[in-house]
């Protein structure tokens, strides 16, 4: 389902020198598999998720998702691909403040195929326990509720891969577990690959498969 081969990524620093961030020989996740990625701050976790989502292109290597080689696609095609195949949950939720909870879920559908399935959006919000918050704007929701809307939004287009970048880092501990459970439950239900980045040992401890980026990213292996 998801496979990375010989993926490298470096950034150019303002002084012109290159900053090598990623060098991953091989990484694979099967359909429905749930993987936690841990690693120190700055070790390239977000960059990895960006590469998988097609938000940025690796310097070399292949990123295969559902049969597509993402890096070879044009930017517009990668956008289209991301809308259709990838769900993304951010650390800071990133709900759009101008739109209601329901509209935040539907807006991703608009970008995918132009048609917004209101019933599915409502169903997803119900599943995360927000059926009474459909018309609320993000500012009117608690942080826990906001992240649940973000989870529903990430699932809106029936993605193949769900990327969650420290989704519980900004949430009080009471709500943390709820969000993790919802993410896991939804991915199980729809057979979605879940890649979850976290710093929390409690969260990581719940998953069968935990990948330490320091071990799979050769940039860091060399450095240490």
């Amino acid at each position, binding site marked *: 389902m998801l496979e990375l081969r010989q993926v490298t990524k470096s950034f150019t620093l303002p002084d012109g020198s290159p900053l090598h961030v990623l060098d991953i020989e091989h990484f694979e996740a099967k359909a429905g598999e749930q993987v936690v990625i841990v690693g120190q701050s700055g070790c390239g976790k977000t960059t990895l998720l960006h590469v998988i989502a097609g*938000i940025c292109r690796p310097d070399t290597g292949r990123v295969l998702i559902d049969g597509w080689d993402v890096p070879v696609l044009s*930017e*517009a095609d990668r956008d289209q691909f*991301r809308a259709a195949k990838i769900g993304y949950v*951010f650390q800071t939720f990133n709900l*759009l403040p101008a739109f209601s909870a329901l509209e935040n879920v539907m807006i*991703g559908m608009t970008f*995918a195929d132009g048609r917004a399935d209101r019933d599915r959006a409502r169903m997803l919000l119900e599943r995360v326990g927000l059926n009474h918050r459909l018309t609320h704007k993000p500012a009117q929701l608690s942080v826990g509720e906001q992240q649940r809307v973000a989870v529903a939004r990430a699932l809106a287009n029936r993605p193949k891969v769900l990327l969650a970048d420290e989704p519980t880092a900004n949430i009080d501990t009471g709500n943390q577990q709820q969000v993790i459970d919802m993410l896991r439950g939804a991915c199980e239900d729809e057979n979605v690959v879940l890649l979850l980045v976290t710093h929390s040992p409690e969260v990581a401890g719940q998953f069968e498969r935990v990948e330490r980026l320091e071990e799979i990213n050769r940039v860091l292996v060399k450095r240490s």
Partner: protein
Amino acid sequence: MSLWKIALRSLQYRRLASGLTALSISLGVALVVGVMVIHAVVDQSFKRSAQGYDLIVGAKGSRLELVLSTVYHLGKPIGKVPYDYFLELTEGRFAPEVDLAVPCCLGDNYQGYRVVGTTPDMFNELEYRDGEKYRFQAGENFGWGEYYDAVIGATVARKTGLKVGDTFQPGHGETAEQGEKHSPFTVAGILAPTGTPNDRALFVNIEGFWEIHAHGHYDEEQPAEGEPSSQQHAAEEHAAEEHAADAAGRPDPAESGGAGDSHAGAGDAHSHAPQAHDHGEPQLERHVTAILVRTNTKRMTRAMALPKIINQEADAQAVMPAEEITRLFEGIVGNIQKVLLVFAVLIVIVAGIGMMVSIYNSMSERRHEIAVMRALGARRMTVMSIILLESILLSLGGGALGLLLGHGLVGLLAPSIMENTGVVVHALQFQPIELVLIPGLIAMASVVGYLPALIAYRTEVADSLSE
């Protein structure tokens, strides 16, 4: 959810900024609408087609002034032509080419409204607009023999309170300040509103007009100013009786025989000319300020040569009002309106630039939102379109508001326009050019929205997400 709706939500989220921006555009558009409607109104009222005559004959001088003073009651009359010249048109050399000639004498006013000495033909034969005969809302036209009868325009009736049977005293001069008073006239009829300058004039029998002028400072003992009170009425009526007695020595037109004297005949009314009292009336100086001439269509070629012949001679000039007005428009008035229109359009453009600044400023805080949309799968073109649509929605909203405001403004001003120009305007008087506004605004919005939209297009997802 359509892109339109996404754009609309973004605008709603920034209500205050969006509202103010739309308001500034609406003010510009309202001004454009105002200028265009006024433009059309002035245009229509001046270029109004035939009023039942095609030539104005008057003293030599400015052609335009002759038209303005005769048709629009503006400015001073330029001079006089002797009555004999009028007879040339009705009975003399030019008679075969002339179907109808209506004399006008100017020089008096009543409470600032012009008093025009003329004949009943003015209302029996002429039209106030193409195909529209004069109608009376009260009373009737004055008769040929009723020397001291008058017909007053609708505005004059409303403003002065004169009713049928009331009397009034014209003062000498075209404006109210010139206060010398003449003998009273009786209102025989009140015209229905015509939407022409004639709503703002009083028409008296030319015979009476001549007579009061022949008598010079006839009634200096009369009260000088103010609304005619009932006592004043009585005094005026008394003076009228005195005057009637005074005038009794002169031949009454009903008694004075002569060709074309059959006043009672309805069908041949246009053949009437004021009576030529050329016997035993040395003090009665007869002249006219202008003659409205309807040429004889049965003698087209010769009739068309008529103005040329008249203009070659030293006695008078003949002008075609339509031609003069068109010239006036293409000259001064048209240019003033063009300048106004340019200003109004400039205001819209300034408002458009304001819109650009407003959207542009919002872009710095919206980079993050745009990056989120991109992360959700929106393409560069999609986020660019959303910003452009916002710009278009803003200007269309502002435009719609501006149309409302503009027409509301026209509606509010309509009574005062009517008052001052006699032109009837309606709030919902749309101009075809307003249709250009919509595509024009969309074009402006696209240009104005392009720069912010480009910023949206160029937003890099990875960089802006982490902001």
